[in-house]
């Protein structure tokens, strides 16, 4: 494997854990001594830095939440003075107040190093010309990838967002080999280039796409790869952690979280208990080296599972699976946790269906019922009742095997489900009424 930082990337699990423990210990002492906010949190939880005697003791530490950042807007959670800060990023926040993230020079260095390792792990390097089609500015996407790509010596095209036809011209004229953008923008780019008569695999040098900043599925990866001939890799990160930080490696089998920088846990969102490898739950991240805005046991609210076995690429840095939804989206139906993203994933496996669907939950007596309305793919329409009935049964079986819950299926015509901003309203829960 090609590594940006072989000494760290080749480390064994045990070596990594030793480093993690060392960082954690330092971090906890530092926060207890210098962070008003986290000092109070630890007092409330009745935990002292001396109680942290192993990596496993991390469970004793209190959580941090998105709400904490909002409540302490703009910079009340920052450590150190303004002189130490070299940059701010601000996330708009879908609900209410924005959150502000500050960076010291070391924070920026670590961020760029993390991205540099990630890009190297998917085979990018000095010979590459990387177009960055994430927004530049207060959003972390553009600048985060930018500094990482420069760090590995690639040639950067800071295209930012918008003007898709121009972006395609640039890809052709500058012989761009890799692009970083959202998966939906990648699809849009592919459709636009098709309209322009540009065949990405024939007429461009584009072979790699680093996609993230919004949830996407394995089905979407297949569609993008087939449509454009590029290899598409998932990237993960949020502004609170610094920005985009981690990607899959060349194996496309989980996102490597650099163990010297971050410690990940996956928890049952209900109980807060740690889950084991492969079990799906809420991602909780401790940033081990962040200075300006340390994050300990931060409950991001993204759903994933982890795998701490050694990857086929040789790295033993823990991998997380692609983000499959948000904790806030979780439905509990007959005691079973159901995520709309799971339903989406199941439906994508049935070619006769379109991509829009709606889950309606009702209560009959004391029993919850789940109805899934799904738009049919027009080309799959058969005028035989039997064919459509067996399609319904098949969808029902696929859902059952995935969710372990039986759902009624309703086939509807394409475009039938009400859309807002291009997306159908995915969940209607009528139980509260």
């Amino acid at each position, binding site marked *: 494997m090609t590594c940006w930082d072989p000494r760290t990337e080749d480390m064994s699990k045990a070596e990594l854990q030793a480093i993690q423990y060392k960082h954690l210990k330092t971090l906890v002492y530092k926060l207890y001594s210098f962070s008003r906010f986290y000092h109070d949190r630890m007092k409330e939880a009745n935990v002292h830095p001396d109680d942290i005697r192993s990596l496993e003791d991390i469970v004793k530490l209190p959580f941090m939440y998105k709400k904490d950042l909002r409540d302490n807007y703009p910079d009340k959670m920052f450590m150190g003075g303004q002189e130490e800060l070299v940059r701010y990023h601000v996330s708009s926040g879908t609900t209410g107040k924005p959150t502000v993230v500050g960076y010291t020079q070391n924070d920026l260095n670590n961020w760029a190093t993390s991205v540099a390792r990630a890009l190297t792990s998917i085979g990018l390097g000095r010979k590459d010309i990387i177009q960055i089609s994430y927004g530049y500015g207060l959003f972390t996407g553009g600048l985060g990838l930018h500094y990482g790509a420069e760090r590995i010596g690639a040639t950067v095209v800071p295209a930012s967002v918008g003007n898709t036809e121009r972006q395609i011209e640039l890809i052709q004229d500058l012989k761009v080999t890799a692009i970083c953008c959202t998966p939906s923008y990648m699809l849009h780019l592919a459709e636009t280039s098709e309209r322009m008569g540009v065949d990405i695999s024939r007429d461009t040098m584009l072979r790699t796409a680093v996609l993230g900043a919004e949830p996407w599925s394995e089905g979407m990866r297949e569609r993008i790869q087939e449509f454009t001939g590029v290899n598409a890799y998932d990237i993960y990160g949020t502004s609170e952690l610094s920005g985009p930080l981690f990607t899959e490696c060349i194996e496309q089998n989980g996102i490597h979280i650099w163990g010297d920088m971050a410690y990940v846990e996956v928890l049952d969102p209900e109980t807060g208990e740690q889950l084991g490898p492969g079990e799906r739950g809420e991602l909780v991240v401790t940033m081990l080296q962040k200075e300006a805005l340390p994050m300990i046991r931060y409950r991001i609210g993204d759903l994933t599972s982890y795998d701490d076995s050694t990857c086929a690429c040789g790295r033993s840095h823990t991998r997380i699976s692609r983000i499959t939804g948000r904790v806030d989206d979780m439905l509990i139906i007959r005691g079973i946790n159901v995520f709309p993203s799971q339903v989406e994933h199941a439906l994508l496996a049935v070619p006769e269906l379109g991509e829009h669907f709606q889950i309606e939950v009702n209560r009959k007596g004391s029993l919850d019922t789940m109805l899934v309305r799904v738009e049919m793919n027009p080309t799959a329409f058969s005028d035989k*009742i039997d064919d*459509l009935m067996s399609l319904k049964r098949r969808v029902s079986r696929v859902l059952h095997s995935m969710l372990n819950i039986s759902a009624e299926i309703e086939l509807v015509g394409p475009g039938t489900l009400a859309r807002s901003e291009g997306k159908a309203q995915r969940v209607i829960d009528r139980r509260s009424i």
Partner: protein
Amino acid sequence: MSYTIKQISIFAENKPGRLAAIADALEEERINIYAFSIAEASGFGIIRALVSDPDKAHRKLTELGYVVSFTDVIGVKMRDEPGGLRDIARIMGSADINIEYAYAYSAKTEAVLVVRVDQVDDAIKALQEHGGQLIKEKELA
């Protein structure tokens, strides 16, 4: 030679007003509906129709967001007396041809049974060999 008739099939959720909306749309395009049937299942239905201009109807309804497909069917004249339907079913049965569905309508002079089978050519052959009278698309009116 062709005795196959192009039928349009429209997917319709079981919602009131669906059929009327479709009829209005076709009327607007001056497309005549010669025959139609509705098949209903739990949660959805399929409207099947023989119309004066199937291509135009397909285009119009697709534009309006309906799921539409073409299906080849055959039209058999029925003796306007008891046993007419049974005769046709028997011919198909002895030729091992499975009828997916059928519906009848009254053309100008006689009743016509519209039949959907999987093996259209075999069905036409069997009916012709046993004295069945088939109608052509242009005879629908």
